[in-house]
């Protein structure tokens, strides 16, 4: 059993309530933090090696140290609970079942950053989760953890829940800020970065739910101890939301030292593929990251076992690797069609493009149409190159990374499953009746041996 830091108490009866949460040791990290200098808390988080859990993996302590501190201007912490990347549903679990963990982490973080009013931006569809958080905030306030002069420390800390209204793009931090200000979720051009000019033109830090929750164990066990868990630059624990064709979909806390194979097949985690089917492919970090066929998923191109951590998942770059991303782990069994799955993702990104930049607005729609044609038996061979060309023209040419996020899954699907696309186009009728199957996607990969030098 791997070490649990976030979900250790998730199954304690009544942990959602303040009373039980406190009895189980909750809010100790706030007591500790309020006795420290804010800068020392930032140091502790730096030492922990914690990397942002929202998808980009940026070191949290470093991000915090960038926040501007102009005299007389308030600063804000905003928690990103927009969680809308297909495959990702871990933040919901944390907020729904252990809401006080997020609130506790946010109080410590607010104190470290000097935010007297912090916000939780939650996706609008999680309406009942927003209510759970509001109740938990009220409990925390009644017990002196929020409000004026918390625990007699002289620090004022307010916390509010702000419900979005259905827009994936609002997970992008500058779109989120626009939405918090009551506007359309159109990403801003950076710079200025939110750390300088964010919400209401004030210095703002945006962090993911899981990132802020992880501050609690970091404070409790110390940054150095936290950094000892895991491997290399993948420190601490990571929540993985596993879904698709597996026996036990759900949320797993892993310590980043296990292999992908163990994660999928062991009883402790996903429990293998249902109905004795074989593993075909997997998107290991949310819909934006590259899909890998079984062979490259379980083994890197160098022939090493692929592990569930930031470095190993991205080993080989986009040519033969993928990314940890948000931890949204999507498994496809041998009877799934990669073309169809990719089409749903293209439709998703088209639907979610905010429309500000033409490569993203037009390109995502175009890719969806082309993929739909291939999927329904109306594709042409030249469509594959066309798709490749469109995605290449989007990548890197847009205001925000949604464009890249839309391009990558298409590129990876073509890179690794080109023959499945070709088969679809050549056999339009057969492709309506059956799937391409596992084909050669589980075959051992040829590991190039380095040339012998004399």
């Amino acid at each position, binding site marked *: 059993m791997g070490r649990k830091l976030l979900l250790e108490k998730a199954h304690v009866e009544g942990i959602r309530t303040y009373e039980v949460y406190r009895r189980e040791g909750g809010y100790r990290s706030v007591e500790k933090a309020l006795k420290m200098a804010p800068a020392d808390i930032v140091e502790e988080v730096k030492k922990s090696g914690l990397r942002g859990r929202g998808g980009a993996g940026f070191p949290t302590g470093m991000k915090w140290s960038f926040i501007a501190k102009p005299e007389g201007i308030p600063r804000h912490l905003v928690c990103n609970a927009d969680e809308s990347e297909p495959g990702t549903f871990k933040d*919901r679990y944390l907020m729904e079942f252990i809401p006080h963990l997020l609130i506790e982490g946010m109080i410590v973080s607010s104190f470290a950053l000097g935010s007297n*009013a912090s916000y939780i931006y939650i996706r609008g569809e999680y309406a009942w989760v927003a209510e759970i958080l509001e109740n938990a905030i009220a409990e925390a306030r009644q017990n002196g953890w929020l409000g004026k002069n918390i625990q007699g420390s002289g620090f004022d800390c307010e916390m509010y829940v702000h*419900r979005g209204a259905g827009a994936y793009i609002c997970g992008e931090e500058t779109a989120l800020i626009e939405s918090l200000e*009551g*506007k*359309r979720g159109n990403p801003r051009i950076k710079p200025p970065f939110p750390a300088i000019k964010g919400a209401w033109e004030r210095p703002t830090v945006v962090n993911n739910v899981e990132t802020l929750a992880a501050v609690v164990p970091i404070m409790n066990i110390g940054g150095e101890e936290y950094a000892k868990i895991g491997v290399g630059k993948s420190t601490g624990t990571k929540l993985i939301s596993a879904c*698709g064709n597996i026996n036990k979909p759900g949320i797993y806390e892993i310590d980043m030292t296990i292999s992908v194979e163990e994660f999928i097949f062991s009883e402790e985690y996903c429990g293998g593929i249902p109905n004795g089917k074989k593993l075909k492919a997997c998107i290991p970090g949310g819909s934006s990251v590259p899909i890998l066929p079984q062979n490259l998923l379980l083994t890197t191109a160098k022939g090493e076992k692929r592990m569930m951590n930031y470095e190993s998942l991205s080993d080989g770059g986009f040519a033969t690797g993928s990314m940890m991303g948000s931890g*949204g782990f999507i498994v496809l069994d041998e009877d799934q069609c990669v073309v169809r799955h990719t089409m749903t993702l293209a439709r998703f990104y088209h639907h979610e493009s905010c429309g500000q930049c033409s490569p993203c607005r037009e390109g995502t729609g175009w890719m969806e149409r082309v993929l739909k044609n291939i999927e329904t038996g109306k594709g042409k061979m030249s469509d594959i190159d066309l798709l490749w060309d469109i995605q290449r023209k989007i990548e890197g040419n847009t205001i925000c990374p949604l464009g890249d996020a839309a391009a990558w899954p298409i590129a990876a699907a073509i890179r690794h499953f080109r023959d499945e696309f070709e088969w679809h186009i050549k056999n339009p009728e057969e492709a309506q009746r059956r799937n391409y199957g596992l084909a050669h996607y589980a075959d051992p990969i040829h590991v190039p041996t380095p040339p012998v030098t004399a």
Partner: protein
Amino acid sequence: MITFSQEKLAKVAELISHYPQGRQKSALLPVLHLAQDEFGGWLDTPVMDYVAGLLNIEPIEVYEVASFYSMYNLKPVGKFMFEVCQTGPCMLNGSDNIIDYIKQKLNIKVGETTADGMFTLKTVECLGACGYAPMMQLGKNYREHLTKEKVDAIIEECRAKAN
């Protein structure tokens, strides 16, 4: 005349107090949620104009926001809205079959409302419940691990509620 009750007006004032002074527009999204719940499940122009007045902003600022976000309905919808997720992970678990079944059962297409105004069927993109697929949103809650039998039961439940 469109007006919130005293209780809802107090809620609006509280929402406005969450944001810095002079930044009352920030309360627009939450106030639109309130308005949609209060005034028949959708945002008619007079409702949006009323919200603009409450927040002291231009009506156009409300329209452009209301049209951006997928949860705001700009047209009337049925009493119960089935919002079924159709994105990858749900598709892998048979969401297409569920959508087809609902279409057939209610005799409507995606985007339509039944003649009695009871049900609207909508397809939506990932709702963050991928591990509990297939799923749909119904009002403020999610219905997960959907099967044909569950869909039947949900339809019955809604009909019973309406009576």
